[in-house]
């Protein structure tokens, strides 16, 4: 019994060996490690100093902010309602908050594999989106109606993202199927459309849909600017996503479709039960990446003139009272976006690892 190495010593041995291999293998390695460690510590120290140690947090701390070198979080504690909800009527902002939380829950739930089939996922998204819309728009169940023009802040960003995903995904499937259609005219035209839209910047597409389209559309089809921009963005999303789905389809062995044909399955059965489910499985990591990019680029609507979370953040520091604290507001906005996209992209990386394990 005496020759058993105590676990703690064994742990220490492994740790020191691993430490040496990973950090201090050669003199160069040691130098690199120390230099980078110094860099990280220096940046971290400065950041903590600025963001916490020297910072002012109280809501009425405007005067105190001038006394210190640190961050002035007072602008956030004072104006967070503007940043999150924009111009939405003050008494009704709880609706905006619940609506946003609903949508976040929907996004979180769609990460569960249990929802991944053609019935549950659309149902989840449509019901989630409908409750979001009813909560925000009102007019039902005794809620005061509030038009889209008064929406703003994070709620508008979430709304645009959800609407783009909801319209763009089915559109992407249709585009992908049309592009690989065996009918030459359809596939060629679709390829041209997809490639053209993909080589245009999103900003020009949004701009065209917001300002140019009313010019060439017949009166009944013009609609609200917000919805036109959403449709333009959804089109852009669909073109990118269609290529991702097509990539997933191309990765399928040809035998899959041939076997389905040999069994006498029709086109819709082949596509719906054999090809698309496997193509989506192949294309899952890039799809999640696409959603991450889509959420980030939602912020471009601020250039077209919508009052999304970017614009409301700038409005929060836009008054003469708080104009000196613009960096703090940007950092706060960055944290909001970071929380969303970082968790989504971590989830994507986790999924990628899981799928690649299954394939090995």
């Amino acid at each position: 019994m005496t020759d058993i190495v105590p676990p703690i010593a064994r742990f220490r041995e492994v740790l020191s060996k691993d430490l040496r291999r990973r950090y201090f293998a050669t003199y160069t390695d040691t130098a690199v490690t120390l230099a980078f460690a110094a860099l990280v510590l220096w940046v971290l120290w400065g950041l903590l100093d600025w963001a916490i140690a020297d910072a002012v947090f109280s809501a009425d701390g405007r005067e105190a902010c001038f006394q210190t070198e640190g961050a002035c979080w007072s602008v956030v504690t004072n104006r967070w309602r503007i940043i999150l909800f924009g111009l939405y009527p003050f008494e009704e902002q709880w609706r905006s908050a619940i609506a946003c939380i609903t949508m976040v829950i929907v996004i979180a739930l769609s990460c569960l594999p249990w929802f991944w089939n053609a019935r549950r996922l659309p149902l989840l998204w449509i019901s989630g989106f409908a409750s979001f819309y009813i909560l925000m728009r009102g007019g039902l169940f005794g809620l005061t109606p509030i038009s889209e023009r008064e929406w703003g802040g994070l709620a508008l960003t979430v709304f645009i993202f959800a609407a783009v995903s909801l319209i763009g995904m089915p559109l992407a499937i249709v585009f992908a199927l049309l592009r690989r259609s065996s009918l030459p005219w359809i596939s060629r035209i679709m390829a041209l459309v997809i490639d053209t839209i993909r080589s245009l910047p999103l900003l020009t597409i949004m701009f065209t849909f917001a300002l140019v389209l009313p010019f060439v559309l017949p009166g009944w089809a013009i609609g609200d600017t917000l919805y036109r921009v959403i449709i333009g963005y959804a089109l852009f999303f669909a073109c990118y996503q269609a290529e991702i789905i097509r990539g997933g389809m191309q990765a399928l062995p040809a035998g899959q479709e041939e076997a389905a044909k040999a069994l006498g399955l029709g086109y819709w059965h082949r596509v719906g039960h054999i090809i698309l489910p496997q193509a989506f499985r192949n294309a899952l990591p890039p799809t999640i990446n696409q959603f991450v990019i889509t959420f980030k680029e939602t912020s471009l609507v601020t250039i077209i003139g919508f009052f999304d979370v970017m614009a409301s953040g700038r409005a929060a520091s836009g008054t003469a009272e708080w104009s000196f604290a613009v960096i703090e507001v940007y950092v706060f906005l960055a944290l909001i976006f970071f929380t969303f996209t970082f968790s989504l992209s971590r989830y994507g990386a986790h999924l990628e690892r899981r799928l690649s394990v299954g394939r090995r």
Partner: protein
Amino acid sequence: MTDLLKNRRLRDNVLQLVFVGGIALMLATFAVTGKTNLDAQGLTSGFGFLEKTTGWRIGFSLIEYDTSSPYWLAIVVGLLNSLLLGAICLPMATLIGVTVGVMRTSGNGMAELVGTLYVEAFRNVPLILQLLFWYALLLSLPNPRDAEPILGGIVMSGRGFYFPALNVLGSSVVVSLFVVLGGASLALWLQAVRWRDADPASARRERRVLGGLMVALVVLAMWLGRLPETGLVSLPELRGLNYQGGVRVAPELMACIIAISVYGASYIAEIMRAGFNAIPKGQGEAGHALGLTRWQILSRIRLPLAIRIVMPTMINQYVWLFKATTIGIAIGFADFFMVISTSIVQSGQTLELIGILMAGFLIINYSLAWVLNRVNDAIRLRGSQLRI
């Protein structure tokens, strides 16, 4: 009737006809409505307005432009600004991205940590937010009067960055640029038709001749275009409230360069990491067994292989990065998109200008992709060079 429906060729043709007809109908509706609206507003369609004077100023221009210049010149100014931004940001993003990618696969835990922090911090925040952040930061730098020159004459001030520059005419810079571009295209072409199958020694000799010729031409262009009675280099000097001499880079341009390079680099770093990880382990181990140093393994084995692996992905990334330069409008950098949108507001010639905008981006992006695809064809691994 049911027989007709079951006839596959007929059904296919009808489907295609419906599809093409639907799109044609949509386009026709656009055209007719557009024409009606134009007539109602009393606007004349066509590109005649390009000759009219603009009457507005552009904040940053590489060529001569003032308020009496015509619209087409304004559009050229915007186009050149966009190209300039792309020409600076793409190489910068590549440089930073490759460095971070190497760090993340270096095997040194600390370097990997720093690389990961970089990628996660800059990839998860929207580009426009980063741009506004850098812009606010640059504007809050001290006045030129209080700014001290650093690193051999670079001045960082709230009114822009000042860099030392050569005392030459702008046109000789443009000529040199074309010499470099032309030489690079010639090299690519020669690589494809001549050097690939030629004897390596003679190919190397010819490459050196070509390189030497390019350097000589650039030096000649600079020499011919030098400004008389000035030194070779002009350094920024404080005169009164502002700096004179050197090259001033406006905060708008600087913020665009920093934001797009840093953001693009975080994506390129991920692509490079994937490329490094796709190299078979044996390649590096073989180099190690031959007694190569780590630097040699990286520069002679891993990096060349990784570049060839990631090239197709990188082409898409470059096109995407170039499209991202339109973001400059958020802080008032007069790029192609901003000039076009200002022209639309000022002249009302919406359809023509949007047409120019789309055509411009299609041409630039397709040629960028075409050139990069040729590069890819020229350097791609053939046969069994890479066994995965």
